[in-house]
């Protein structure tokens, strides 16, 4: 029996919803692919048709959250805001949407964000990295800055971006307020570097 595209989308959404809940309640380490598959009444092998591993499930959840964050960011940003403020808003909005998965965000960092190059890892991991860099590239282009002009622009931004998210994942301060300060200062540093290049 052929599975329709719609049916596949529905199954994928069920996998993600169930995984999200189990990761939150049972914990990421304690949850297995088998647990998720059993709960939605599909074979483990079937689940592997959608995702290579439970880490990829986490990355897919992050991808969805970041896509929603991006739509919110585009709605809220001010066209006349300084660059550092726009970059801050972009990442802080992501953090707000990623909040429900903070307890299991580390696998996302390890799997998708810490890769040395863009073409490493699963499709969903590659998509996550590419999308983020495209978003930032658009922001910089709006300011007349070509991100490709200096070879260090992307590595510097990426290092700060992953650094902030890593910090946030383990931030024990009340309401993770330290992350806001870290993000603010990181974007200040990035913009200062760009400005130093003229």
């Amino acid at each position, binding site marked *: 029996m052929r599975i329709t595209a719609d049916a596949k989308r529905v199954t994928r959404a069920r996998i993600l919803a169930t995984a999200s809940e189990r990761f939150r309640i049972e914990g990421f380490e304690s949850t297995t692919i088998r647990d998720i598959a059993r709960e939605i009444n599909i074979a483990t092998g079937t689940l592997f048709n959608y995702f290579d591993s439970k880490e990829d499930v986490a990355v897919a959840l992050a991808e969805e959250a970041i896509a929603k964050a991006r739509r919110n960011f585009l709605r809220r940003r001010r066209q006349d*805001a300084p660059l*550092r*403020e726009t970059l801050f*808003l972009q990442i*802080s909005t992501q953090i707000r949407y990623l909040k429900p998965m903070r307890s299991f965000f580390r696998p996302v960092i390890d799997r998708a964000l810490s890769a040395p190059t863009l073409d490493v890892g699963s499709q969903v991991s590659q998509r996550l990295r590419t999308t983020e860099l495209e978003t930032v590239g658009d922001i910089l282009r709006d300011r007349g800055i070509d991100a490709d002009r200096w070879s260090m622009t992307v590595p510097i931004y990426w290092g700060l971006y992953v650094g902030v998210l890593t910090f946030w994942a383990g931030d024990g301060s009340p309401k*993770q*307020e*330290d992350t*806001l300060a870290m993000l*603010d200062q990181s974007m200040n540093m990035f913009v200062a570097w760009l400005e130093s290049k003229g």
Partner: protein
Amino acid sequence: MMGPTIADLVAALPADEPTRQASMADERLKEIFERLSHRPVPVGSIERLFAVGGLQAKLALAYLAYFVRSWFSSTDQRQQQLMETHLRSALRTLETMGYLRGAVMKVGQVLATFPEMLPDEFAEILGTLHFEAPPMHYSLLREYIENELGRDPAEAFAAFEPEPFAAASLGQVHRAQLPSGEVVAVKVQYPGIARTIRADMQNLRRSLFPLRLSKDWNSLNDQFGEVQEVLATEADYEHEAQSLREGRALFHEDDGIVIPRVYEQFSTRRILTMEYLEGESFAAFLAGNPPQELRNLFGERIIRASTQLYCERRLLYSDFNPGNILHCGEGRLGLIDFGGLRRLNDEEWELMRQAHEAMSGPDRSKVLAYCQRNLMFTDEEMSANPRIVELVEEWSEYNWKPLRTSGEFDYGDPEYLRHGMDLWKRAAQIRVLRQQPVNVFMHRRAFEIASLLYRLRARVDSGRIYEEAIQSSG
């Protein structure tokens, strides 16, 4: 005709002959602070004295640096180098505390205003004293407020100005309007700065620990603890909110003293939403050349506010810098910053009660007993340090002079201000290292009020106000 400036008065004071050792120490300290300063600062006038920001910790840091500096002058070469090593270590720690940059360079309001105590170049390096919390752009502010209040500022408030209208010591202040219509001032602290300060102060204390070999380490350690406590208090807006509520409960409409109301629903430990007070700054009030009667009235209200808070609530408002007061029309005083308010504990209150008893009567033995307790001296130390005892006694007399004067006291008399400056200078020379920490704030409070009222040229019957406050406090 304008009276003498502080610079004129200081220039008129007799200069000291610096010792050779003191000069060497000054040079080294100058180098260290020059590296930290990164920018030239103009030599100040009386305006700079009064323009500085208001944390009491700044004064305490000044004492700290001054005490440390004094060790250079009284030790041999080897000890000097050892102490310098520790000082450099401490200063390196301070260097990383970017928000304290002003405080480190300034080494306290008091020292900076007495260029004759220090080499001219050193005094020039000392800058305007204020914490330099980074400015918050609107996106950061919005995110932070949403974290703290649970809603975006555009939702929580009927209106919210994205640009701050004032800086606060650890953040900034925005004007806004509540859904119910009231215009408010929303003070927002820079995220995480309170914890950063706490951790840094602990590191700083550890780096100063080698100085514990000094016989006065315990007192210095206590005073450092005082600094930490003040900083922690300043960073806790819930504490400030409580102080505001207490202060507000003391005064009525016809007292002419206005303390802003707190809006608890829009306040947390890091956000303080208060009634926005309409008024002009102290500088603007003076620039309008108010008549003597209005100056006296405003001065009286400054004294009354300070005295009533102290007598009725044991609250020490020792942050009388012009940035914290407003003239709200017709001599009405607005007090807007209660962050540095300090409550006296039972032991400190008893010490102050002893001071009151000693200074109110003619019995000199009571005055000396109070001085001894203040200095924490043994009987032997009292006999061995007559200059210190004499200075502390004279300082107490100085602080109490306006209260003991029958009728109006003329705060505009430059001799009174000059006498206060002379006392600070002599304290530096004699190196009064040990005293009850609360007295650091008491002296500062008295001198700040005197300086403020000097600028006002106010004549106030402080004694009557003080007695009334004592009576009403029971």
